[in-house]
């Protein structure tokens, strides 16, 4: 009896160019099929990484992102299309991945990658790809990789410049060995402030994907111990040596970080709970009142089109109409006012209090903070 083939006929057809490549072949393709890769961030870097790993036949891809697709993403995040604006990124990305290769499994993690879930999510995969867009999550990804003993295929971009490396391989350095501490907030502008060439993540992301494939196949020279720098304006690649720091707090000889830490604190990320109104309430307090069914009016002072994107089921009276529509509100009930970020609602609170309302408070951080802290199913925009 003939030996059962390791790949189905449609896989043999699909991966033919890999099968004829001696460094991959059937054995390599089976390795790819058996492999699992977690891609943190479904943005500029995550887009090419996911699409290429899917096309290459990596059997299981996990994608993590809490965000929704915005128009400003489409210039570089090629896994999403115009019709996807407003949709959860992982949902849009999973669809694109399935269009490229329906034979693989895609796990959607529609949530932020945080200290509380990263170890659990990361543990399920062989390799983790850092496609995040902020320092706090980069240090988290790094630490989780070291703690779980998983390779971290790292890439990062800014304007016309890119960096790529592989961290967390045995004996090799980790991200903290290279950058022990993040810059102070605001010291290095992010892509939203500084801009980024749309094609750049395509170059850097495909390098990350290449490194992942090589690790799975066990071929070639990994970027571990080397930092690849790209200057797209000069179209110049530079290769720098990176060595493991024996004193590194996470991968060193005597590590002091043995579990994920508070990365917002570590990176000095400004908290969003700065006071916006003397009558602020925290999202957690509003949640408590809602759960307890306390009688109240939730007043939404955004515009109609914003209400359509997301809402908390409140009464909609846009701020500019509020002065002439206060009689629509029940003066006997507590009122919690919200907008997108908390500033318009702070004005509304003042306006209502000036108009004689006594129990009016402002949802600090607005519906965006609510989405981040209480209910991630509420889209942010």
């Amino acid at each position, binding site marked *: 009896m003939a030996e059962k083939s390791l790949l189905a006929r449609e896989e043999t057809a699909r991966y033919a160019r890999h099968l004829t490549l001696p460094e991959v072949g059937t054995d390599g393709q089976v390795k790819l099929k058996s492999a699992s890769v977690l891609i943190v*961030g479904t*943005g*500029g*870097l*995550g887009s090419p990484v996911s699409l290429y790993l899917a096309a290459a036949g990596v059997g299981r891809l996990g994608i993590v992102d809490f965000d929704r697709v915005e128009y400003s993403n489409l210039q570089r995040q090629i896994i999403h299309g115009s019709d996807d604006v407003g949709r959860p990124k992982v949902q849009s990305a999973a669809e694109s991945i399935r269009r490229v290769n329906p034979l693989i499994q895609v796990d959607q993690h529609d949530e932020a990658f945080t200290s509380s879930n990263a170890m659990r999510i990361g543990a399920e995969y062989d390799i983790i790809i*850092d*496609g*995040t*867009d*902020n*320092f706090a999550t*980069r240090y988290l990804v790094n630490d989780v990789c070291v703690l779980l003993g998983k390779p971290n295929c790292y*890439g*990062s*971009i*800014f*304007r*016309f*410049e890119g*960096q790529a490396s592989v961290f967390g391989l045995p004996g090799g350095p980790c991200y903290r060995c*290279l*950058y*022990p*501490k*993040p*810059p102070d907030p605001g*010291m*290095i*502008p*992010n*892509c939203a402030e*500084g801009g*980024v060439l749309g094609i750049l*993540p395509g170059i850097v992301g495909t390098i990350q994907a290449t490194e992942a494939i090589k690790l799975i196949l066990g071929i070639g020279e990994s970027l571990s111990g080397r*930092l690849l*720098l790209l*200057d797209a*304006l*000069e179209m110049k690649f*530079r*290769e*720098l*040596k*990176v*060595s493991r*720091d024996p004193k590194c707090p996470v991968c060193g000889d005597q590590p002091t970080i043995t579990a994920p830490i508070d990365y917002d604190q570590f990176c000095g990320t400004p908290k969003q709970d700065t006071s916006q109104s003397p009558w602020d309430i925290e999202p957690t307090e509003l949640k408590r009142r809602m759960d307890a069914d306390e009688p109240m009016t939730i007043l939404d002072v955004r515009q109609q089109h914003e209400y359509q994107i997301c809402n908390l089921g409140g009464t909609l009276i846009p701020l500019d109409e509020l002065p002439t529509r206060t009689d629509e509100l029940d003066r006997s009930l507590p009122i919690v006012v919200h907008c997108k970020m908390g500033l318009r609602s702070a004005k509304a609170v003042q306006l209502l209090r000036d108009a004689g309302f006594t129990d009016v408070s402002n949802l600090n951080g607005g519906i965006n903070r609510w989405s981040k802290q209480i209910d991630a199913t509420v889209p942010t925009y």
Partner: protein
Amino acid sequence: MKVIIPTALRKHTDGQNHLCVTATTVEDALKQVVTTHPELRSSLFDDREQLVSFVNVFVNDRNIRDLENEATPLTESDEILLVPAIAGG
């Protein structure tokens, strides 16, 4: 010798992608750079005049942390790279 200025710091060098210095050590080279472009100082040194840890300084392809830090000697053909952490994705 050339000190290569990364995109993130070019706002402090009037957009120049490199600066030319004549120096015998890394410390000397960096001092010249922040003297001619004082706005670079806060991106490279902290309040105690120590190099900040989110900018790596390389001489050719070697991190000065693996050489002799700021005392690393330079020759005319050396290239000094400032490599700040970037986070975009």
